[in-house]
């Protein structure tokens, strides 16, 4: 038996490998459930009944998909440029904070308020990611560690604001800001938490990023910088500025996701852990499943969204901590990158 390297495996082979990886990950997650004391099949049946087999469950999946589409599409683009942004959690929090600042302290009228919040949220998220992008482009500092650390500084910044200067007067005793004025709240589909304007925005931006990546000079540069920075330099592509653009886009989209969460769901600023909920980390799997294609993130975000909504269902049914989502995320990622090896190698028997 020997292994034969396949330089460019067929798409169906890649899809089959990814499908098997997901099944294997679900299998191992089942073992974890079993160790927790819940039979795996019971856990998965409950998860499906509470999400895809239930209209209210569908609405939950849809609203979980909104931030995952936005962040996942941005990460997919950044990963193509080999910019590993692990800091989407922080960028979501900063985007949410900036939007909350506009909503609470800038008395804008109805048609202008929400666009201003989205714009400021985008800029804030982008600027926050730019810190790590500048360090990477200018000094070669590994962005995985810096973006990760920026998650925690963002968390404490929000803590400071909601416990201190921005603390609300109307909800005394809680670390919340005052509720947003009505013109700063996004409309939702009746009876659900699906803030549809953000969903439309996410789908449009994912398609736009796909166009940018595959049809424009900038997209070409992003891809070359990711595939072979040496070659990019020889070809005269400005590697540093291209990385900065990747950072700005991925950070900006995460910022938009944060705006959607506070303006559509919470209607106030609160502890950022309750806003980001791990979307920023799980979006890494969304981007990885999408194979660096932002448009595909629209679909792959739904897979992770089912697991997010399922996390809530499992929490209620079996008192599991919501962090059960991390078990899925970690296993998916581990099996997916392992499956790449099997997609790229064929087993040959005999000599």
């Amino acid at each position: 038996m020997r292994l034969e390297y396949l330089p460019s495996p067929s798409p169906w082979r890649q899809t089959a490998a990814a499908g098997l990886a997901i099944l294997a990950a679900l299998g191992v997650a089942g073992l974890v459930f079993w160790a927790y004391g819940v039979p795996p099949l019971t856990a998965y049946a409950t998860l499906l009944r509470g999400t895809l087999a239930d209209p209210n469950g569908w609405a939950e999946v849809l609203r979980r998909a909104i931030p995952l589409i936005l962040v996942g599409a941005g990460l997919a683009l950044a990963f193509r440029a080999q910019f590993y942004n692990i800091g989407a959690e922080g960028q979501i929090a900063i985007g949410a904070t900036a939007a909350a600042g506009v909503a609470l302290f800038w008395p804008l009228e109805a048609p202008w308020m929400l666009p201003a919040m989205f714009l400021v949220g985008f800029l804030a998220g982008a600027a926050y990611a730019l810190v790590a992008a500048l360090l990477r482009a200018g000094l070669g500092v590994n962005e995985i560690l810096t973006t990760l650390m920026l998650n925690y500084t963002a968390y404490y910044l929000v803590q400071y604001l909601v416990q201190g200067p921005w603390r609300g007067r109307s909800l005394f005793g809680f670390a919340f800001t005052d509720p947003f004025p009505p013109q700063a709240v996004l409309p939702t589909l009746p009876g659900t938490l699906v803030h549809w304007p953000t969903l439309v925005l996410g789908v449009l931006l994912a398609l736009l990023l796909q166009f940018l990546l595959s049809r424009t000079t900038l997209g070409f540069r992003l891809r070359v910088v990711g595939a072979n920075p040496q070659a990019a330099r020889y070809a005269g592509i400005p590697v540093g500025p291209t990385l900065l653009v990747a950072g700005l886009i991925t950070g900006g989209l995460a910022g938009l996701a944060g705006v959607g969460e506070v303006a559509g769901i919470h209607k106030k600023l609160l502890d950022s852990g309750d806003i980001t909920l791990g979307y920023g980390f799980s979006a890494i799997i969304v981007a990885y499943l999408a194979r660096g294609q932002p448009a595909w993130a629209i679909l792959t975000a739904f897979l992770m969204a089912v697991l997010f909504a399922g996390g809530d269902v499992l929490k209620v049914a079996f008192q599991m901590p919501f962090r059960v989502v991390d078990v899925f995320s970690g296993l998916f990622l581990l099996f997916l990158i392992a499956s790449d090896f099997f997609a790229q190698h064929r087993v040959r028997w005999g000599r």
Partner: protein
Amino acid sequence: MEEVWAALLRSVIFGTPILIAALGNLLNERAGVVNLGVEGMMAVGALAAFATAQTTGSGALGVLAGVLAGGVFALPHAFVAIGLRANQFVSGLALAMLGLGVAGLLGKRFEGQPLLASLPEMPFVYLGLALAVALWAFLYLTHAGLVLRSVGENPAAADLLGIPVYRVRYWAVAVGGMFAGLAGAFLAVSYRSSWTEGMTNQLGWIAIALTIFVAWEPLRAVLGAYFFGLLYYLGFALQDSAIPSVFLQALPYALVIVVLALVAWRRRQGAAPEALGLPYERGRR
């Protein structure tokens, strides 16, 4: 004066899990393998240690279980990153998420339980120091240490000399995981003597940054870890002062960014093992 000594001692004690985790990470990075999963391995080690100590009534058995659990939990990363030559950064990240998730889920039944078989803190402080010296001696005074370093610097040349590159890397990752498990065990059966979800509190990530900061030198890691211990201690001790405590709590993370930038600016990354983070495949350049 007495208060200053007490404060420094608390800093050293709090720096100890950072030190132990950083030493393990330093070991596997010296063999050329990055493992970002330290936080997850610590969490799994902490849970294994707490669960074992609670059920057997023996803190020492708990520590042993934590060490073994950390080592075993590192193996998926070793297989994916070394055996399958996948992206080491992504694989380690997956391990971090998985470890936090699994420990959070399976540890729920122990949440809030007081530990009866708690261990004193000082033996771990001495153990951390001894491990730093031992790792230094191993890396620079023994043949095995030379072999390990050569695998991290130039695996192709090491392979040519008959060194089993894959085996050395597997062992380095497993032992690195054991160190992380020990760090977690210290938190669970001694420092905190309890289990709570998220009790590793990002110390694993600090340990990874510290490895770069101390230029992959075990003895320097001692001072670096105690320094971060001091920062955490200040965040805790100055809670009621004029400075809002959240700023002090955020300080270690902000400082990691500053330190990484300074290290890069002074081009100390030249100290990194040459083949760090690069999968090795025989016959391919």
